[in-house]
């Protein structure tokens, strides 16, 4: 088992938090993981991405040229990373910012890849927590891959929301469930 994941979006969408959370959940599940945030003078509103590798074996290179899994939160990321996706790879796409009818060659892409269109931004807004689109997408990732179980996810979330952020645990968990349910109801 090996997943090579790139999560990409605007700075401020919680892309790095989502990557860190997925890596930590997979580590609690017993996998080897690496989490490499893009690294430079990033800012809110600019583009931002991170690479997460989850594997049963030792991970040598933390850098990958073509991911097997993509989480795409905005249009520039779609343009940049979808062409790099491995054949047969999977992508979760934020359908609030990337409309499927606007994508050229959608039929070809659908033949090559497994695509999941999830309106994560509006899902998060429906909970009155627009900043939690990243947790919705982690929920979708969980439901599609089932790489880690919910118990380990909760452990990881608790670790990341320690001390002053502890009160955010419940809203985060809600957004996670909403994302997972969206996949369950629309794709399964």
């Amino acid at each position: 088992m090996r997943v090579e994941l790139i999560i990409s979006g605007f700075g401020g969408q919680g892309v790095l938090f989502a990557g860190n959370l997925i890596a930590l959940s997979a580590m609690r599940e017993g996998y080897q993981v690496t989490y490499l945030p893009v690294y430079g003078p990033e800012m809110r509103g600019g583009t931002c991405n991170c690479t997460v590798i989850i594997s049963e074996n030792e991970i040598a290179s933390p850098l990958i040229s073509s991911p097997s899994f993509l989480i795409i939160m905005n249009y520039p990321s779609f343009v940049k990373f979808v062409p790099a996706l491995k054949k047969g790879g999977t992508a979760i796409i934020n359908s609030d910012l990337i409309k499927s009818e606007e994508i050229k060659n959608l039929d070809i892409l659908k033949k090559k890849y497994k695509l999941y269109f999830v309106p994560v931004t509006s899902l998060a807004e429906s909970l009155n927590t627009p900043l939690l689109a990243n947790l919705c997408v982690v929920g979708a990732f969980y439901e599609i891959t089932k790489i880690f179980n919910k118990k380990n996810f909760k452990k990881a979330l608790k670790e990341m929301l320690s001390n002053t952020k502890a009160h955010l645990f419940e809203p985060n968990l809600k957004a996670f469930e909403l994302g997972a349910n969206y996949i369950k109801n629309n794709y399964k």
Partner: protein
Amino acid sequence: MKAKKVLAKGIEAIAFGALEAGCKCYFGYPITPQNEIPELMARELPKRGGVFLQAESELAAINMVLGACAVGVRAMTSSSSPGISLMCEAFSYIAALELPAVVANVMRGGPGLGGIEASQGDYFQAVKGSGHGDFHFMVLAPHNAQEAYELTAKAFEFAEKYRNPVMILSDAILGQMKEPLILKKLRIKEYNKNDWALTGAKNRPSRIIRSLFLSSQELKERNLKLAKKYKKMKKDIIYENLVNDEDRVIVVAFGSMARIAKDACLNLRKKGYPVGFFRPVTLFPFPVKPIQELIKKAKNPLKFVVPELNCGQMVEDVKLAVNGEASVISLPYPPSVIPFPEELEKEIKKCLSSSSFQKA
């Protein structure tokens, strides 16, 4: 009790390693990409009865380390390339005074202010030129978080064993990447400091540690003493060796580049190419003897390929180690052109086919 497992950045691993070794003082000045070290030390050291102090400059920080070490306290600093350059004068004094300081350099691109991308451009500075005079750091180059933790702790032991400064040479990729880290108990030996540390001359004659020797005889002896020490350090050489006797190409890489190179080598090997992988962990002393052993044991003529995140520095030490008995090829990657494993694989394959070497 089971050791705690955390998801930690490479630089946090360095800080945890120092705490595990009982480091009591951290002095530093902020610089990207190593700020999580002072952040963690600021939080943890006071809890353990230690001292954290953000100095007014790198120069001040390293001289505070000098002072703490002189009185026999385990102390360290960390910085990144431009900050390390500012400390070089004090490094020379620390080596001359034979003080067991630990310094972490989380390398970024240079020269000058350079950039904040990962680089291995300070290899020469770390192993050959970290100040004036005839001295060396002992240089340790981890390649993942676990190793960064264990080597940093070990650095305090080596520093005391040889009474010499030890440098942890990491880089922005290793530093910023998060990986599983097991915070296991480590056995770090403590060496007797009672015969040199400046602890107050009550009930004993006073002692002075100094670096000024105006008598030429004395200065010569001091230099020879240091040289002897560096020779002795060879006993503590560390390296990772994944080479078979049948291999025709041996890839030599350290730090983050070793991660990428290892992937490339193991992929090529899976496809049947005679490619081995060798990773120096101590960069000074350089693992010369193990490399000579590889040449002796090889069943075929060998080529050494040295990829680095710079324009070719460690390749010179590989050439010295090989001593003309095999060809040595440099694969330079200056900052911000970090190769993917597949790209490196192609380059290594080119080295395989650039002579009569064929697929096994």
